[in-house]
């Protein structure tokens, strides 16, 4: 880490200050009341209330997240989120219909969506960060639109034509775009992870997936599938029950993979990203255990399924607590010295459109 001679005495360097851990103080039972009322009002208002519900949900989680004795806050306005949702819904309809009704129009609609998407995603970063604050000082995202096109369109295209060989590179560039352009007040964040480190984790992911399917194949399930295909090739009647059994096994295998390899990858990549992000001179450490995350994800999945969703509030709180509390900030100087930047106004269109199209933007 760079030394700042004159600004502080050596005794006050990062090693001398105690690390500050993020704390999450919410509880599942408490959140259940908020969640169920939100759900009821959303149903009764045919979805209109969902924008207010979203603000309450984010406020619940932000305000229960504490750093150095002060909590975060979310300032997004529900009406802006509602406008964003309406536009996002319109785009989603246009997308669905153009994909189902293949015609010349499909290409036009997809091209328009691809063209506005980088701009929307960049806006969604801006909206989310600008409406997040700690101790009354807001975050900001200052990435340019031009870079957004490069990061999303160009790198995405590169990943696609190289059959995803370039995907880890594209992911690294995306995170660099996000974190290098994030500010807390007038203090800028910086991102230091290299593409090589992303490749290492992606290789591990690939290895885990290969091993998983080899195990599935050797444990006889592959045999059942093979004989089924064989029977079909020879024009014989395939037993519908056998088909159903194979489909159920495949579906189950995909679920098992998603609740084991999924969290494993998520923990490793999140640790990498945050361990290599700095807020000004302040270092961040993220130490999420992949095994605990696998346990939480898998048990949440089972409990949500068994309770037909009633466990959702507890599941969300469990997951948030574990993920947030694995993050620590190593202050290089006094955390009272951040200065706020000038206020701006930012619309919510980007964020809603981006989430409607299922882009996972984990910040």
């Amino acid at each position, binding site marked *: 880490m760079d030394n700042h001679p004159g600004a502080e005495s050596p005794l006050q360097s990062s090693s001398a200050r105690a690390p500050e851990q993020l704390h999450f103080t919410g509880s599942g039972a408490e959140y259940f*009341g908020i969640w169920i009322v939100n759900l009821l009002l959303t149903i009764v208002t045919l979805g209109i209330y969902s924008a*207010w519900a979203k603000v309450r949900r984010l406020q619940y989680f932000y305000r229960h997240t504490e750093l150095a004795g002060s909590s975060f806050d979310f300032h997004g306005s529900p009406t802006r989120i509602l406008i964003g949702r309406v536009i996002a819904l319109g785009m989603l309809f246009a997308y669905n219909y153009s994909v189902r009704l293949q015609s010349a129009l499909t290409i036009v609609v997809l091209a328009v969506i691809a063209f506005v998407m980088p701009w929307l995603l960049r806006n969604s970063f801006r909206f989310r960060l600008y409406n997040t604050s700690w101790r009354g000082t807001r975050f900001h995202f200052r990435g340019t639109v031009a870079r957004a096109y490069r990061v999303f369109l160009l790198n995405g295209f590169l990943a696609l034509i190289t059959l995803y060989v370039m995907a880890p590179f594209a992911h690294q560039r995306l995170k660099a775009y996000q974190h290098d352009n994030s500010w807390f007040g007038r203090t800028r964040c910086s991102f230091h992870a290299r593409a090589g480190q992303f490749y290492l984790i992606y290789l591990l992911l690939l290895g885990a997936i290969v091993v998983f399917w080899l195990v599935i194949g050797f444990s006889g399930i592959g045999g059942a599938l093979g004989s089924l295909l064989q029977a079909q090739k020879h024009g014989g009647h395939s*037993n519908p029950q056998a088909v159903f059994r194979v489909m159920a096994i495949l579906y189950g295998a995909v679920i098992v993979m998603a609740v084991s390899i999924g969290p494993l990858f998520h923990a490793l990549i999140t640790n990498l990203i945050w361990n290599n992000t700095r807020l000004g001179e302040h270092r961040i450490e993220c130490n999420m255990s992949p095994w605990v995350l696998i346990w939480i994800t898998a048990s949440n*999945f089972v409990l*949500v399924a068994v309770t037909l969703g009633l466990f959702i509030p507890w599941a969300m709180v469990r*997951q948030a607590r574990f993920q947030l509390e694995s993050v620590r900030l190593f202050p290089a100087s006094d955390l009272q010295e*951040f200065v706020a930047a000038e206020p701006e106004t930012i619309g919510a269109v980007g964020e809603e459109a981006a989430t409607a199209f299922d882009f996972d933007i984990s910040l």
Partner: protein
Amino acid sequence: MLQANYFDGRSTRVRLVDLSVVGEDLVIAGEGIDFRVPFIGVKVDERLGAAPRRLRFPDGTFCEVRDLAALDTLLSMTAHRDGWVDRMQRHLQFALFAAVACVALAAAGYEWGLPWAAARAAQHLPPAVGKTLSVQTLKLLDGKLFMPSKIAPERRQALSAKFHALRLPEGGSPDSELLFRSSPQLGANAFTLPDGTIIVLDDLVTSIDDDRQILAVFAHELGHAHGRHSLQLLLHSSAVGAFWAFYVGDISALLAAAPAALVQARYSQDLERQADDYGAALLAHNGMSPALLADALKKLAASHAGTSAGGYLSSHPSTDERMRHLLLLAASFKSI
């Protein structure tokens, strides 16, 4: 007296202050701070569990309060009243009521609202939508699941002629196209596509030896075409999928992808009954007995007896129940 952290909104400096109410004003006093604001201009955050609440002042500065009980005491001395959503979120009775109401609304919406909306929407979608969907479905199935029909062209023409000679109860004759295909996998079966096109499989024609009974099956399929049932099913499954994704999507994208088909069996049975009723009415309108459809069903059941889960009958109510219902209809039409 209430302790709070004061922030000026321009830096992250924490100042410890005491809050008190004097008359109509809130007094903020502490480390280098001493001011009062009319309470009417103070925005109080709603309660979200045990999270700290903020009192926001008109100049953009605010206080973060952790002692929620003491804050309640302070607020009770002012004109502040909690919002109704705030109160609902906090009380167990409301939470339980909301839980019951959610389940009841979801059940009612699924049972009545959704089929009603799907039926209305299916009737109002432009015909082009059904047409395009049908062309695509057929393109997808031809060559994979469907093979060209092996039935003699003369026989097909004869059946088509009889089909088009049927008179519909609402007037006119069927404008549905009748297509013949064969499919070893699907056996004795018939389908109606979203635009009303009816696909008949060879096994169905060969396993029913009475043309009037084949026409009864066509009448049943015309019921599906008349009610636009395949569009309804499509809309129904999209809506169920969208709701499920909204409901569990936050926590598990995987659960959100759970097939909507799991909850659709009963809905499609309802549509089958509707098609039976329409078919029976159509047969009666053409001077034929609805019992013909019951006879056809019997033969189809026999032809499917060998395979375990026969295609034509799996998404349908039990054959016995349908036959009983049709015979009842036959009796009632006779008496008119």
